[in-house]
């Protein structure tokens, strides 16, 4: 055990170069959604970095406490975006999660999910298909405008959540694959729908395919795609993450294309930023392959506006639509104007800005599962801002945010539809 602690300290010491840049100024408190709820210094970036510094210097004998603190983070990147010193907070936290969770061991449930399901897409898809068929036994409709469900029985594990049901037919079944040549646009793109779009929001994937086809963009959408890896990485399971990266790489390397598009902010940020960031332990050749693929990754909104230059903002009238900035799109990828431009190009909709549109919705992937109360408190503010905007539709660019926002609105019985920007754009075609 002692040797392990020393090994852990050595590995953490390697993060020192990044952590030492933290001036402990505390400006991260101003933007951290978790801190706003708990008011605990240990929940904000500065506190976590101090804790990790102390851990690496062997001043602390409480790895469970460190693990808990590290997990108490949405990985939204607000702190990094607001940091005067430019501390790469997400890099530090993700690497630290890998180190601490490797040392502590992965909980059995996560091990089963990541190593037994996520890294085996065939098994994962089959399980989800079965779940899709039988979900009606346990769930009932909660809000028809949103399309959400809730549990038929009062289960503690559900904690009153309203959730989006699994689609009757996944995108994978509706559109098993595509491989078309470029038309007038001259571009050919690969499309990575990601798990949530595939299994819960296939209509978003279909909207993307419709828009790309309309603009005569060649599409390569291979079958057999796997998860981008963020759930495993966020839980510190680097092994599963590596497997998923490798599998996706092999699938997409089969063809040539200009961009690798996603309609999921989290997948985009993961593939563009985290794939190369976490590849330092790989061979040079593998690192080069990952870097080349990552460089092609682009958010679909950005592709439509910056590359295809399709949006022509109009003075829209009719249904009021507002937009929520997903953290991974705005804070990680610096994409915020493009989705708004697409929304404004719909003549049947009037765009209205909500307050704090770029404030995290509180989802944070597994954060929502582990810390639902805090996640819900953060989401409640988002819900209030959406309602205050007067919008009848809230659009966003991340299916994970769509899940969280749907839950928040549905629980309040709000009659506000939750859509992806590409769904709204596709309506104009």
């Amino acid at each position, binding site marked *: 055990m002692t040797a392990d602690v020393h090994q852990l300290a050595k590995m953490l010491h390697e993060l020192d170069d990044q952590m*030492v*840049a933290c001036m*402990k100024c505390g*400006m991260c408190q*101003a933007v951290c959604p978790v801190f706003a709820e708990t*008011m605990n210094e240990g929940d904000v970036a500065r506190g976590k970095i*101090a804790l990790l510094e102390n851990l690496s210097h062997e001043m602390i004998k409480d790895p469970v406490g460190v693990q808990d*603190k590290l997990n108490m983070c949405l990985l939204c990147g607000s702190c990094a975006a607001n940091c*005067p010193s*430019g501390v790469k907070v997400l890099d530090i936290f993700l690497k630290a999660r890998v180190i601490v969770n490797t040392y502590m061991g992965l909980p059995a449930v996560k091990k089963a999910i990541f190593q037994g399901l996520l890294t085996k897409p065939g098994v994962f898809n089959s399980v989800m298909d079965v779940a899709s068929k039988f979900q009606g036994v346990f769930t009932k409709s909660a809000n028809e405008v949103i399309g959400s469900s809730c549990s038929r029985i009062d289960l503690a594990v559900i904690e009153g959540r309203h959730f989006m049901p699994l689609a009757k037919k996944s995108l994978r079944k509706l559109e098993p694959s595509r491989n078309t040549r470029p038309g007038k646009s001259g571009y050919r793109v690969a499309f990575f729908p990601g798990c949530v779009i595939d299994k819960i929001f296939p209509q978003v994937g279909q909207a993307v395919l419709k828009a790309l086809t309309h603009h005569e963009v060649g599409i390569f959408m291979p079958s057999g795609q796997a998860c981008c890896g963020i759930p495993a990485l966020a839980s510190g399971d680097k092994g599963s993450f590596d497997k998923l990266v490798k599998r996706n790489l092999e699938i997409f390397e089969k063809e040539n294309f200009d961009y690798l598009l996603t309609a999921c902010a989290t997948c985009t940020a993961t593939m563009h930023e985290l794939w190369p960031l976490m590849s330092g332990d790989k061979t040079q050749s593998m690192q080069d392959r990952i870097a080349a693929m990552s460089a092609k990754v682009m958010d679909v909104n950005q592709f439509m506006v910056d590359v295809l230059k399709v949006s022509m903002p109009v003075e829209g009238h009719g249904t009021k639509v507002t937009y929520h900035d997903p953290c991974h799109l705005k804070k990680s990828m610096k994409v915020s104007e493009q989705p708004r431009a697409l929304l404004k190009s719909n003549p049947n909709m009037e765009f209205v800005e909500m307050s704090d549109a770029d404030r995290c919705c509180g989802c944070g992937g597994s954060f929502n599962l582990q810390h639902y109360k805090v996640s819900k408190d953060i989401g409640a503010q988002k819900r209030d801002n959406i309602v205050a905007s007067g919008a009848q539709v809230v659009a966003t660019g991340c299916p994970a945010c769509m899940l969280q926002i749907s839950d928040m609105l549905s629980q309040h019985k709000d009659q506000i539809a939750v859509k992806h920007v590409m769904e709204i754009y596709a309506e104009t075609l």
Partner: protein
Amino acid sequence: MISTSLLTEFKTLLGKDNVLDSESDRHSYSYDAAVLDAVIPELVLRPTNSEQLGRTVALCNENKLPMTVRGAGTNLSGGTIPTKEHGVVILTNGLNKILEINEQDLYAVVQPGAVTAKFAAEVAKRGLFYPPDPGSQAVSTLGGNVAENAGGLRGLKYGVTKDYVMGVNFWNAEGEYIKSGGKTVKCVTGLNIAQLMVGSEGTLGVFDEIILKLVPPPVASKAMLAEFDDIAKASETVAAIIANKIVPCTLELLDNATINYVEDFTKAGLPRDAAAILLIEVDGGHIALVEDDAEKVLDICKKHGAKRVQMAKDAAEKNKLWEARRNALPALARARPTTVLEDATVPRSQIPAMITAINNIGAKYKLQIGTFGHAGDGNLHPTILTDRRDKEEFHRVEQAVDEIFDVALSLGGTLSGEHGIGTAKSKWLEKETSKATIIYSRRLKKAVDPNYLLNPGKIIGG
């Protein structure tokens, strides 16, 4: 050690979520923004109402627990780092309400944990103005601002926090409620304890409510950037502006090193070869008067050797000018791992001498130093760029800091324009004041805190 029964008593009083006793939690309260060694508190307590706060203080006193009160922990002189043995940290962020904003009588009553920028925004919504604007205002608390007598960019015209404190109600070390000052513009009743509390850094009492003065906001402002090839000329310009009876709301200086770090970082087009730039903003209650002042300032800059003066035509241009100032610290902070931001303050006329001395000290100790700050009030921030892990270099940093403060004092300056004394600068206090002053201060402390438990070791040591 804190006994199990006392721990239980705190948990009963405050609720278990407001008593942080795990090792990982306590670590998060072992530092502030000063580059000093961390000290881990034995317990962290968060009262959420006045009665809880009073009882917490009384319990600490009864059990001889040293108390360090902490707002946002943005302190730059170690004022919120707990004391070494058995110290507890008392958090004020559970007491963060703005209790009253009185638009008729121009005052506000706040709890100590209210965040400065949020308060200023609430005041502004009602057409009023709270001028103190410390750089950390987005997170800093008003209680912390009062305890440290925080300043900011508007200090030249509008003063610092002390100029806005009308009253302070607080718990003394023994948990008794003390009231001082009030809500009237004129209030000379009794000892002026409220002002004694300002800048006392948590050594004399624990704030419960603070009464702050509000003022009407300026209705117009104009900003400009002036370039100089000689820092003495920039300094003369500062003095000349004031001598011409114009008091800008902000008058900031960036030295050549800082200009270049900012330019490296932002590529904003700042003049890399300028010895210094001045960023000047005038404001007031009438647009014509403000424009007239701005033109006069522009002329003064030119007459005193400014190579170029760029007046902002609109809000967007003004914002662009201020980007340079806003990016000074981020640009410096990115240059090296550790940033030691100091707070040497001298009479305006001594700015060139101070900056020359800082540069000489930097050369002597082979250190990178960028200097920027509030030239209008002589409050400079020499910022040493280093790596704390390099023990030899950090020793040179400590020697350089010693010399910088020696020079500041020799030029008739002060140890702190706005960052407080804390533990970081307490060793120089006698040099700036006198032995008798220290003894007098300690007697005062002893009289109001007989067990020496309120943030011991800060300002006057002991």
